[in-house]
């Protein structure tokens, strides 16, 4: 039962980073790829069908964190109070600015996306014990890369070209971040952390190769996994998710039943959203 809940938490958190990652990436790149109001609207239209669905992965992950890992939840959130406060304020600004899209609000949209991306980076850096600035910048690069790859896949014409160029240009900085993250990881994290880094570099190579060949879905798959990797790497290396912080068997049983019913349903319906917006193109 404990293993199921750890897997569930990991799955939901990775899902959040892999999916909402491109929302934030697109937000960061909005003014860079969309040079005028019309193209900016087109950029945002590519994201909005998935926007609600992507964001709730976070809600579900934190819900499971609270229900199944209550002592980790209290410890993690209250010890990183300020990071979470800033991150959440950024998240709210970003959400509002996307929903109430108007050129005057763009500083909230781009700024909010930057704050959220950097916030998650700083948080991961702190949990790992690596330099916060590096991790903050690193996650901004990773999410931006993911966003650019998503746009290269979903847009066409000049916008697609610009998104592809941006994505290709971000591959090297992303690789530099991965190497720097390993070098500065500090006191002997588990060898699994190094393995994660090797996988990340391989995925970056995959993104680069797939973009060159115009295989956009492959590139998107690679960048999605790439965004989820830091979570696995950091929490795996620090082994903070232990049985002692978890709820009792009776609580876990209730939650497991709920997850067994709900998660497949969500997957089917979110897949339907992707399928439908593909059919509409």
């Amino acid at each position, binding site marked *: 039962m404990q293993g199921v809940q750890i897997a569930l938490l990991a799955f939901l958190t990775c899902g959040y980073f892999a999916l909402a990652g491109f929302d934030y990436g697109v937000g960061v790149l909005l003014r860079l790829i969309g040079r005028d109001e019309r193209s900016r609207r087109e950029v945002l239209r590519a994201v909005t069908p998935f926007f609600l669905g992507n964001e709730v992965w976070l*809600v579900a992950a934190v819900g499971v964190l609270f229900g199944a890992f209550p002592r980790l939840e*209290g410890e993690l959130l209250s010890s990183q109070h300020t990071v979470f406060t800033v991150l959440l304020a950024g998240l709210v600004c970003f959400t509002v600015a996307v929903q109430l899209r108007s050129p005057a609000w763009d500083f909230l949209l781009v700024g909010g996306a930057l704050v959220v991306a950097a916030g998650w980076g700083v948080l991961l850096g702190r949990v790992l014990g690596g330099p916060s600035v590096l991790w903050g910048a690193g996650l901004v690069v990773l999410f931006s890369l993911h966003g650019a790859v998503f746009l290269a896949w979903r847009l066409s014409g000049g916008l697609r070209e610009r998104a592809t160029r941006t994505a290709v240009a971000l591959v090297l900085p992303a690789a530099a971040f991965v190497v720097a993250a390993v070098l500065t990881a500090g006191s002997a994290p588990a060898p699994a952390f190094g393995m994660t880094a090797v996988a990340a570099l391989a995925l970056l190579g995959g993104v680069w190769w797939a973009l060159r060949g115009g295989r956009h879905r492959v590139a998107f798959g690679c960048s999605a996994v790439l965004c989820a990797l830091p979570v696995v790497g950091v929490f795996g290396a620090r082994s903070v998710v232990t049985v002692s912080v978890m709820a009792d068997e009776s609580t876990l049983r209730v939650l497991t039943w709920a997850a067994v019913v709900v998660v497949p349903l969500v997957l089917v319906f979110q897949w*339907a959203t992707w399928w439908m917006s593909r059919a509409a193109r």
Partner: protein
Amino acid sequence: MDALGLARLQFATTTSFHFLFVLLTLGLVTAVALMQTRATLSADPVHARMTRFWGRLYVVNYALGIATGIVMEFQFGLNWSGLSTYAGDVFGAPLAMETLVAFFLESTFLGLWIFGWDRLNKWVHLALIWLVALTAYASAFWIMMANAFLQHPAGHELRDGVLRMVDFSAMLANPTFGTAFLHVCFAALTAGGVFLTGVSAYHFIRRTAEVDFFRRSLRLGVVLTALATPLLVGFGFGQFPIVERYQPDKMDTVGALDGTGLGFMIQIGFVLLLVSWVTVPLLFRDWVVRMRFPLYLMVIGIPLPFVAAIGGWLFREVGRQPWLVQGLLTTQDAMSHVGQDQVLVSFVAFTAVFALLAVADWVLIARLARRGPVSSDEAPVSPLVPAL
């Protein structure tokens, strides 16, 4: 003010804002689901147009409300880690169920409903809005269950210094849960009905050309309010014996803040009950529209259910102090070990963004509501909303 006072003030402020969004979301989604059902069954295009117009107001409110919901969820761990450490096993379970069973599904269904407009089979599309409504009420169900545990802990035992869940069904059977949950549901329906009525009345005041459209909306609003308010009041008063039995201190220590809240809530409940039933016969031959002065009252009345809901919530929560979990954990002991500065920063930050959200929500809803059901949409306000 010390860190504890600030943290409490932060929770009260953010929850009040969050509650405003939730009430309208629950009330409107029910009305929209009813409208879409008629639209699917009938050939008259007015029902489809109603679904689109009111559905858009609903989506705006939901999309902004979700941001407040995310912050709410994090707040427990940020400022009240003592609660998750001590009672997380029990209190966290319904909260986790809410995010998984309700919130997670609800947003997924809603995203599909918004972008499936004109693309999905009409029966599938109708099923989606009912699923959205169902999961929305499921959210309220789990949240009220979590709250009931704080009012009257049940289904737990103390083991190794922390509370463990022993009986999930005892949590479901908690006497402070069922009646309160139904009370909240009918409060939301009332808020939705009053909102429909008020916005429709506004268009009649402006002598709208969409007479059929707003006549139907007004009728639905008045009937919804008239049906919901007797049950709302009933389940409200039904809670007094329960409170007296399980939380006797709550009635005795009623102070200025929660006492005023309770008073306002009861008065507003009775006023809405009375007025909605007086209005029902006046719907005959549009008398209420021809008399005109009731229309102004309907517009003025829009905020009333929201004021009442905040009042009721203050009574329920303030009256429990100094306990966070009645008889087991004090609010003071539940506080995280964070400094006053940190709480001050989060208080200012969250209050500011929530106020921004609420104002943005009201301005946008007012703008869309005033514009009425226009078919061409030359000035989209957001890339998400115009998809409707």
